């Protein structure tokens, strides 16, 4: 009996010790945890070019992936020390909150509502909606589309806000909604639609894939900011990630950001201006 009691008490003591050490580990910053683990665990998707998708060889590639590599480069001086956790878009916040991933870089749109649940890093892209036209087609640019009024048909991805989104830019245009991206582009190719309206980044990437076939209307609207997200309450980790990302857009690692931007969007981002740091202007 006594023996059993001793074992029981010892058991409880061990459990308490375990809990305590777990507590101590969680008091330590994520930054230390990641460094001692030797790899960064990044949550992202695999089905949305040019952000995060699989190339023909099955490797995860895209702009989000490059941002993750920039952060890993800052941590380990080695962009390959990453474990990507594949997650659906609606798993982005739960996976951060439950600690399944260290950071999520998965075209997360910054909103105040989301900022109540997770911490946003500095932004790395500003998404918008653009109009793509067939080059040499009936309408040359945004002004021509707008002038044509209700004669213009715009193809968009099916979505509750699609109609309003198009009408914000072209108030009189007819809106044709399609279930998938390929059908939306097909409508443009077949002449059923005069323009396709979708995310600027997707259009840029698509135009880069099909050089010379399409032109941008020159007008973009519907701004939304993309940032990575981390768990709230760990300022050392957030600060580290912010520094790594900010310096890729303004400082020593700019060549990495620039190369990624050119690769996925087919454009060169503005060079950081030498002299007074522009972010304080």
């Amino acid at each position: 009996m006594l023996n059993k009691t001793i074992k029981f008490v010892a058991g409880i003591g061990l459990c308490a010790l375990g809990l305590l050490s777990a507590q101590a580990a969680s008091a330590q910053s994520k930054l230390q945890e990641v460094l001692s683990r030797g790899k960064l665990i990044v949550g992202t998707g695999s089905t949305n070019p040019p952000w995060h998708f699989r190339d023909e060889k099955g490797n995860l590639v895209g702009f989000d992936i490059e941002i993750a590599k920039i952060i890993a480069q800052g941590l380990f001086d080695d962009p390959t020390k990453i474990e990507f956790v594949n997650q659906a878009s609606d798993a982005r916040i739960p996976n951060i909150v439950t600690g399944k991933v260290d950071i999520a870089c998965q075209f997360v749109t910054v909103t105040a509502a989301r900022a109540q649940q997770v911490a946003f890093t500095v932004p790395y892209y500003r998404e918008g909606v653009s109009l793509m036209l067939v080059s040499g087609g009936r309408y040359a640019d945004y002004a021509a589309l707008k002038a044509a009024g209700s004669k213009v048909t715009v193809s968009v991805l099916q979505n509750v806000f699609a109609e309003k989104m198009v009408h914000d830019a072209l108030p009189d245009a007819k809106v044709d909604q399609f279930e998938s991206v390929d059908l939306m582009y097909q409508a443009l190719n077949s002449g059923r639609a005069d323009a396709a309206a979708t995310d600027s980044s997707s259009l840029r990437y698509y135009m880069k894939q099909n050089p010379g076939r399409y032109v941008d209307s020159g007008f973009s609207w519907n701004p939304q900011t993309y940032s990575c997200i981390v768990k709230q309450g760990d300022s050392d980790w957030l600060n580290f990630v912010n520094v790594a990302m900010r310096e890729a857009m303004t400082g020593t690692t700019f060549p990495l950001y620039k190369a990624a931007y050119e690769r996925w969007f087919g454009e060169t981002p503005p060079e950081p201006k030498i002299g007074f740091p522009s972010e304080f202007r």
Partner: protein
Amino acid sequence: MQTFLDQVWIARWPLWDGFLLTIEIAISAIVLGTVVGCICGIQLLFGPAISRLLFRLYVDVMRGTPVLVLILAAFYIPSVVGISLNATQAGILALSLFAGAHIGELLRGALQAIPPGQAEAARSIGLTFPQTLTYVLLPQALRSALPPWINTGVELIKGSSLLSIIGVGELLLKTQEVIGRTFMTIEFYIFAGLLYLAANISLDQLGKMIERRVQGR
């Protein structure tokens, strides 16, 4: 069509990997689910009252919850209490628990369908309860439980596609990845559908074959 076939050829390995993972997940879930289900089915009928109650609760909760909810629960709840399962493990856990409840219930039904005279006769010739179960009841129950058991397997192959939600790279997610790159939505979904169909028809035929063997004696 030609470009589609080219794209299938380019994507053959990712799709094949996804297909294999789908099959692996389904097999793991049916094996684990069968183990759980056998214990569950026997306990539901012959267990002590407390055990009957607990297994009844398990079966009702599992059967009354959508598989998708089970999958999300298996993925998130363990990590809240500090157990870290990866997506595939969590998915197999959810599908096994789901299958365990279904198989438990169908085994209970099959055992109950055996006329009580069988067990009484076994007892009267001096067989112990484990012997009665092994030699008299289970062989008969398993025979009548076989068709619905195969059905559960088919459900699991289809259910494994839900694991794409938590990021398991099975056939559906691999297909979506290929669609993301090629924009050939309809073609690749039909292709994936045919693969699921082929797997399920094969399983069905396998089931029919086993059925013939155990019945035809």
